C-alpha cells in the first residue's frame, strides 16, 4: 500500500496533540507502519501548529510536503488556507469554520481573509467545512472540536466505526470518554 499522508493543523492549544495520538495509536493497532511528527516548544504558544501523520506498508519521511496530503484536518479556517498547498490534487480538506484572529489581525496590521474557503473551493479543492465548535459544545465541551473533526474525517479511512470508538476509549482519560464518543459520533454522522 502506498503511504497515506494526513495533516492536522490549527492554533496552538486547540488539541491537535490528542487527535494525532488517537489516530497514531489506531493506525498502529490496524497493523500499519506509522510515523507521527509534531513540533513542540515556542510555536505552541498560540502560534500556527501542524502535525503530520503518515501510514502505509513502510513509511520513511515523518513529514509531509507540498502536494502530498491525502487529508488536511484543520481546526481553524485560516490555518486550512495556510496549509492548502500541501493537499494532493484529489485530496480532502475537513475544516472547522471557526475564525481565530492571529495577532497581526488583532492589532490591525493584516486582514483576515473571511472568504478564503470559497476561494479554495473555486480553485478546485475539495473542501468540507463544518461548524465543529457548535457540535463540540453540543457534545459537552468546546474542547472536543478535535474529536468532532476526527469523526468527520474517519469516513475517509478504511477502518470500521467500532475501531475508532475503541481507540477513543484507549486514548482519552476515563471521565472524558463519553463526551468524546458523542463528539466523534456528531462528526461522523454530520
Amino acid at each position: 500500500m502506498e503511504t497515506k499522508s494526513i495533516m492536522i493543523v490549527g492554533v496552538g492549544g486547540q488539541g491537535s496533540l490528542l487527535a494525532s495520538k488517537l489516530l497514531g495509536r489506531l493506525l498502529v493497532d490496524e497493523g500499519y507502519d506509522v510515523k507521527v511528527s509534531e513540533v513542540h516548544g515556542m510555536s505552541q504558544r498560540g502560534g500556527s501548529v501542524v502535525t503530520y501523520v503518515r501510514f502505509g506498508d513502510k513509511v520513511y519521511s515523518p513529514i509531509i510536503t507540498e502536494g502530498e496530503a491525502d487529508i488536511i484536518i484543520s481546526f481553524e479556517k485560516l490555518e486550512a488556507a495556510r496549509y492548502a498547498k500541501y493537499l494532493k490534487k484529489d485530496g480532502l480538506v475537513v475544516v472547522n469554520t471557526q475564525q481565530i484572529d492571529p495577532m497581526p489581525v488583532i492589532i490591525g496590521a493584516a486582514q483576515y481573509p473571511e472568504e478564503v474557503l470559497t476561494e479554495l473551493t473555486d480553485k478546485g479543492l475539495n473542501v468540507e467545512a463544518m461548524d465543529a465548535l457548535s457540535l463540540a459544545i453540543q457534545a459537552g465541551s468546546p474542547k472536543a472540536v478535535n474529536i468532532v473533526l476526527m469523526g468527520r474525517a474517519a469516513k475517509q479511512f478504511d477502518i470500521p466505526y467500532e475501531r475508532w470508538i475503541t481507540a477513543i476509549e484507549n486514548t482519552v482519560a476515563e471521565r472524558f470518554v463519553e463526551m468524546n464518543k458523542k463528539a466523534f459520533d456528531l462528526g461522523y454522522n454530520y
Partner: protein
Amino acid sequence: MKKLLIGNQAVACGLYDGGLGVVSSYPGTPSTEITEFLSKYDDIHSEWAPNEKVACEVAYGASLAGARSSCAMKHVGLNVAADPLFTLSYTGVNGGMVICVADDPAMHSSQNEQDSRHYAIASKVPMLEPADSQEAYTFAKTAFELSEKYDTPVILRMCTRIAHSQSIVEFSEKVPAVIKDYEKNPDKYIMMPAKAMKRHPFVEERMGLLTELAEDCMYNTVEYNSDEIGIITSGCSYLYVKEVMGDSASILKIGMPNPLPVKLIKDFASKVKKLYVIEELDPVIENHVRALGIDVIGKEKFSILGEFSQQTIAEAFGMNDKVGVSADSVIPPRPPMMCAGCPHRGMFYVLSKNKITVHGDIGCYTLGAVAPLNALDSTLCMGASISGLHGYNVARGEETEKKSVAVIGDSTFMHSGMTGLVNISYNATNSTVIILDNSITGMTGHQQNPTTGYNIKGEIAAKVDLEALCKALGINRVRVVDPYDLKACETAVKEELAVAEPSVIISRRPCVLLKSVKAKPSLNVDADKCKSCKRCMGLGCPAISLKDGKAKIDNTLCVGCGVCKQLCAFDAII
C-alpha cells in the same frame, strides 16, 4: 512488544534498558522529554540540574562512581557543558556515560542553528546519530557498551524531527543497572598538566580504534542498489532520500558521524559514478570526503540552512512532480505569542510604555519582542540579559543606567543569571535587573527548578529564596511586585532606575497555564462605554480583538487577569 514512541521517549527507554542509573539534565527544546520520560522510572535517579554544565558534571561523577549515567540538553546547552566535555574526553569513564544533545535545524524553538557534530570532532568523542525512534532506542542502549569499551563519553545526537517524530519501536531485553567498583586512579581522573599530558596520547589512540570500528559496525550501513548514483547521508536526511530515491540509488548511511570511516567511504565512492553527500546543516561529512581526495556534490546542491524534506531531495534530482494549490488572498502569519493572562505581559507593557531599553533572555518572555509590545532590544543566550546590561551600562554610563533593564526568568536566573548579577554588584553599575518569576520553567513545558520548591518528581524540595539570594550576591535593593498591578510595576521600575545603586525587581506571579492557577471569570466589554481608543489593544492580549470598531473579549481565552481593565479610561471593561 511494539510501541509508537517519539524519538525522545525512545532514547529514554534505550538508556533505561541499557542499564542507566543516574540522569541529570537541564530542559531545552527539543531534548526535554528524554529526561521527563526517565523521571517516571523509580529505580533510577533523575533530576533537573540548574544548568547543562552542572548536569554533565553530575553525570560524570556518577560515571566515576561506577554507574551508567546520562545528561540531556539542546544544542546550545552543549555550549554550556563544553567545559567538562573536553576534559571528560581525557579522563574517560568508569560507568558508561551518554551525553544526549538535540539540534534544532530550522530553529523551531532556538536562537541559532549550530551543528553539534563539531563538538564531537573537537572534543574527540564518538557520536551516534539515529534516524528514527527504533534507532534512537538501539543507539542509546548500545552507547553504554561503546562508552565502557572505549573508555569515553559518547554523544547521542538527535535533531528536532527525530526527537519529536513518533515511529514504531521494538524493545529488547533490559541490561541490569550495576555499579562498577571505584578505584582511585589519579593518572586517569586528575587532569593536571603532567597527568593530562599522558592522557592525550590515549585520546588520539582511541580515535584511531574508533575509526577502525566505524569501518565495520552496526551504525554505518550500505545499501548497494545502483552504480550510477551513490549518496552518503545520515539522520533524517536518510529518510528523505529513501522516500524519494527508494532503491534507485546506492546509499551509505552514517549512524556514527564521529569518527567517520575512511576505507568504507573510499570503497563506496569507488563503486558509484556520481557521489552525493546529503546532510543537514554544516558540511561535516562532505569535508571529510573531500579531505580523502574524493570528488563529491554536497552543499552546492543541498543548503547549509534550515531543514530538508523529501521535496528538497526531489527538487535537487529534478524529480518533483507534486504541486499544491494556494488561495490568492494573503494569509496573515500566526506567530506565537504570550498567552492570555500571561504574568509577563503587564511588566512588558510598563517597560514598553516608558521606552526602556530592555536586555532580554531565553524563555517565554522572549515573546515580549513581538508586536504590539516590541519591548525587547536584545536576546543572545541564557543569562546574557544581566551581564549584557552591565556591559551596556559600563560603556554608556549614567545615561543608560537610568533607562535600561535586564529581564530574565526564574529558571534562567538559576541557570546562569546569578553570576552576571554578582558581576553587577562587584563591578558596580547602577543596573536594574527584573526577574520575571513565574514559578516554573515555562517555555519547555513546565519543568520544576530550584526556585519552585519541587523536584523533577514533584516531591517537595529545598526552595531557593530569590530575595535572600540577590541580597547575598551583593544587591541591597530587592523588591517584589505583582505584574498584574500596572501601577505598582511602573512605580517600582521608575524608582529603581532612578536610584544610584544596583537593584533587583522580582516580578512575581505563577504561569497562568499551571494547573494550580485558577482562572477568574472572563471580563467583558460594555460596547456602549467603549470609545474605540484601542488602548487595551496595546497589550497584545490574544483574548482582545476589535469587532465593528469596539474592543471585544473572547470569553474562551480570557482568564480575568484584569490588566486591560486598568488601562481603560472609560470603565468599559467589566
